[in-house]
């Protein structure tokens, strides 16, 4: 039973067979074999046809020739017998010896040139002859002896005539006396060659045969080419001549006994004579043309076959090369695709999976764990001192360290586990088959130990530590993002715990610091992603209202959260240490901007920048600043660093040293938020300050609250006493400004006239002021 499926399968199979057949490796040899078959079949057929035709022609020719020859021999014999009968009649009726002369005179004898007619007496002596002959006595010869017993034509055996080098044949008939007794014989003598003189080389060739064979097996004459022979060894008459009565002469292809030549032999017993005629055509000669043709055909077929095979071999070779090169091209494409895919999913430095691949693996791991109700763990790992190594030893050493770390991480894991590099010094490990949490802890400890072993970088031994955060599925999250984020949070917890340890994520940890950590996470990338910018707030002279300087204010343009105020993220940056690179960026950007304004032809302005506690405590602060000033071309006199009052008071000795350093560079120093830091005035006096900035909390109520008014007056007075520039912060109303002017404050800041704005607008503002300066010297007031 064939269903449709079965049919379609059969069709498919046959199609596939056809397809396979169409492949050059099979197609070419198949065609070649077919063509060879045709060539050889055709050639062999042609040879066979030609040979058959040649054989047929030889047979026909042999038969025709024997017909003709038989007729000629019989006629010649009859003529001879006729002559003998005439002689016998004349002899017996008339007189004896003179009959020959009379017969000759009447032209009743055969031509003298070829025949000798003679008469013998009863003793065998020749008594009369038509012309002189060598034969004079025949008493002991068969032609004579035979006639004694019978009265028939006798054909004698060939007689050699050595003197003439020829064979002669004698024919005889009995002559009777009047009483009927034997009186002698009449004889005709003729050269044996006469009977084969009809040998035609054009028909019989050089090795054919024409001959007369006696029933006694003795050849009367035989000719082959120009060679005439007679007598010789008797041959088996019956084997050569078919039985009498066979009208249609069979042509036998046989090797003739007398000379060993293979011939198309026809033999025919003569009627009324004890002789047979034989005609033979040499097989070699008759088939020579066919054989030559055969050799030609075979040669051509062989040559054709050889050429065909050569062509097929060449084609096969070419097609194989083509296929190979195609295969090669395909392989290369595949290899290229594989390489591209590899690069897309692997980290170039460590050859570990990258974030994309890890995300995939984690997704699969979660699916698997979900389906089989299993746990998995995500380990977040961060090197603790990587940045320092990178900074102090250079990127190459840092890269080498990361590679070494990658190698060590792999040795800590099973084959089924996965480790990826997310970027920087962050690695993440996936333990997809987690029996219980202690295993994750074991792995984490193993990792910590592995990383803690000393590294040798550029010939020196170094030690680094790592902090590891662990989150597990399904407890700490059901999706990729949550698990990763929570592992990250746990990692920060580990860092908080003093580094070189691992922490499991906990819900509490999350609620405490989720926001902070989320902020922290994105803060880490903000610099790279250019999310920071600086706005500038003008500082004005309180009397002239003219702009005297700027303060750079950091803004974070978060892609999702919008603009984030410094007070929100600076503490986080401060805590994580990110403030150092961020602070550097701020300083550099502000200085570059200041220089740019000057280049645009705008007036020289001071540029104030806030320093945080961490920045201020940074050992590299002074060298970094010096470097930065050189790099940007900023005049140190124009740079003013604002440091919170509280900060200076933490460690007075260090603060003094740092401030001294700054002063030496020519940088101006301002105390920020002055008035709320409980500074002792004596201490304050030690610091090399240039400016004090009155905290906004005093200014806010300066116009209304008397205490604030008094304090502000006191601060201004103190500043003046110490020869410091006094700046009021947070001036928002005209009243405040008026009060401050009144009390000889030097400069003011705040939303009253001084809204922070982008650099371009500031430039515009400065230009406008340049024009209107003379006309409206106190426009602000």
């Amino acid at each position, binding site marked *: 039973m064939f269903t449709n499926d079965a049919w379609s399968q059969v069709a498919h199979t046959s199609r596939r067979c056809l397809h396979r057949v169409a492949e050059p490796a099979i197609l070419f040899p198949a065609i070649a074999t077919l063509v060879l078959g045709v060539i050889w079949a055709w050639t062999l057929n042609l040879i066979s046809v030609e040979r058959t035709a040649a054989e047929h022609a030889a047979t026909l020719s042999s038969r025709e020739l024997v017909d003709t020859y038989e007729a*000629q021999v019989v006629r010649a014999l009859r003529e001879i017998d006729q002559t003998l009968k005439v002689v016998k009649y004349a002899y017996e009726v008339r007189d004896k010896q003179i009959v020959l002369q009379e017969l000759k005179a009447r*032209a009743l004898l055969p*031509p003298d*040139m*070829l025949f000798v007619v003679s008469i013998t007496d009863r003793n065998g002596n020749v008594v009369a002859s038509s012309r002189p002959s060598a034969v004079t006595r025949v008493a002991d010869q068969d032609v004579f002896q035979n006639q004694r017993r019978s009265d028939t034509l006798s054909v004698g055996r060939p007689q050699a005539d050595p003197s003439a080098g020829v064979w002669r044949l004698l024919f005889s008939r009995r002559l009777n006396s009047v009483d009927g007794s034997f009186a002698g014989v009449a004889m005709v003598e003729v050269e044996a*060659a*006469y009977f084969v*003189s009809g040998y035609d080389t054009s028909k019989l060739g050089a090795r054919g045969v024409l001959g007369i064979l006696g029933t006694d097996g003795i050849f009367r004459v035989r000719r082959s080419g120009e060679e005439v022979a007679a007598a010789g060894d008797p041959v088996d008459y019956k084997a050569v001549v078919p039985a009498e009565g066979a009208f249609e002469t069979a042509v036998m292809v046989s090797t003739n006994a007398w000379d060993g030549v293979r011939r198309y032999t026809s033999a025919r017993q003569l009627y009324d004579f004890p002789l047979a005629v034989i005609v033979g055509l040499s097989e070699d000669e008759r088939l020579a043309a066919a054989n030559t043709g055969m050799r030609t055909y075979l040669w051509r077929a062989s040559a054709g076959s050889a050429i065909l095979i050569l062509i097929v071999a060449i084609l096969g070779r070419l097609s194989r090369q083509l296929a190979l090169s195609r295969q090669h091209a395909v392989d290369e494409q595949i290899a290229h695709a594989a390489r591209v895919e590899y690069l897309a999913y692997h980290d170039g430095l460590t050859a570990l999976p990258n974030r994309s691949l890890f995300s995939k693996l984690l997704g699969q791991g979660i699916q698997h764990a979900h389906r089989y109700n299993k746990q998995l763990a995500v380990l977040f790992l961060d090197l603790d001192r990587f940045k320092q190594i990178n900074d102090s030893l250079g990127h190459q050493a840092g890269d080498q360290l990361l590679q070494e770390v990658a190698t060590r991480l792999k040795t800590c894991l099973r084959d089924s586990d996965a480790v990826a590099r997310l970027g920087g010094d962050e690695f993440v490990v996936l333990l997809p088959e987690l029996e219980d949490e202690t295993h994750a802890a074991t792995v984490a400890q193993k990792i910590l130990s592995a990383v803690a072993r000393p590294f040798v970088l550029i010939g020196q031994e170094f030690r680094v530590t790592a902090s590891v955060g662990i989150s597990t599925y399904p407890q700490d999250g059901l999706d990729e993002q949550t698990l990763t984020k929570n592992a990250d949070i746990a990692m920060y917890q580990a860092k908080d715990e003093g580094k070189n340890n691992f922490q499991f994520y906990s819900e509490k940890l999350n609620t405490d610091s989720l926001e902070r950590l989320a902020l922290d996470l994105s803060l880490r990338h903000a610099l790279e992603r250019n999310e920071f910018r600086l706005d500038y707030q003008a500082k004005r002279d309180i009397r002239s209202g003219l702009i005297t300087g700027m303060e750079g204010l950091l803004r974070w343009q978060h892609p999702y959260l919008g603009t984030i105020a410094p007070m929100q993220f600076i503490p986080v940056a401060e805590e994580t240490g990110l403030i150092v690179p961020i602070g550097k960026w701020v300083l550099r950007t502000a200085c570059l901007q200041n220089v740019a304004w000057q280049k645009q032809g705008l007036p020289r302005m001071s540029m104030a920048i806030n320093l945080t506690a961490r920045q201020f405590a940074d050992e590299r602060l002074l060298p970094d600043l010096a470097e930065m000033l050189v790099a940007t071309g900023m005049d140190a006199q124009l740079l003013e660093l604002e440091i919170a009052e509280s900060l200076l008071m933490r460690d007075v000795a260090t603060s003094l040293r740092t401030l001294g350093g700054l002063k030496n560079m020519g940088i101006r120093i301002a105390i920020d938020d002055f008035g709320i830091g409980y500074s002792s005035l004596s201490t304050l006096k030690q610091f090399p300050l240039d400016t004090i900035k009155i905290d906004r909390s005093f200014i806010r109520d300066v116009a209304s609250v008397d205490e604030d008014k008094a304090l502000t007056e006191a601060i201004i007075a103190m500043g003046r006493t110490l020869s410091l520039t006094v700046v009021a912060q947070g001036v928002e109303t005209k009243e405040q400004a008026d009060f401050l002017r009144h009390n000889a404050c030097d400069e003011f800041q705040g939303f009253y006239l001084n809204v922070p704005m982008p650099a371009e607008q500031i430039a515009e503002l400065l230009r406008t002021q340049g024009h209107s300066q003379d006309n409206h010297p106190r426009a602000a007031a």
Partner: protein
Amino acid sequence: MNKQIALLLVGLLSTGATFGADIIVIVHPTAAAPTKEQVADIYLGKSRAYTPLDQTEASPIRAEFYQKVTGRDLTQVKSAWSRIVFTGKGQPPRELLDSAAVKQAVAADPKAIGYIDRSALDATVKAALALN
């Protein structure tokens, strides 16, 4: 001088005597004279334009005649005639006893052709060709 002329004459005469031994092919006075090639064809049985007459095998003129006309010896001539006779295509020339008999036969037969010794030549026949 006379002596020299006499010698020359003797020489000429002796040469003439040699000419006298030459063979002359003769035909009937009314018949056209054949060329040497035609004579050869006639005596080898290839042409029947004339009836050839032969001299006996014993006569020396016969071998000389065949040699000069056909370039063959008597054995070869015999072989050629053997073939003709055997295949029934003709009969060899009739043999006559001597030049006189030949001359007489030719004079009597307008179709006949023969060869004789120059010495036997006379007006009864036409000399067609001299062989020397």
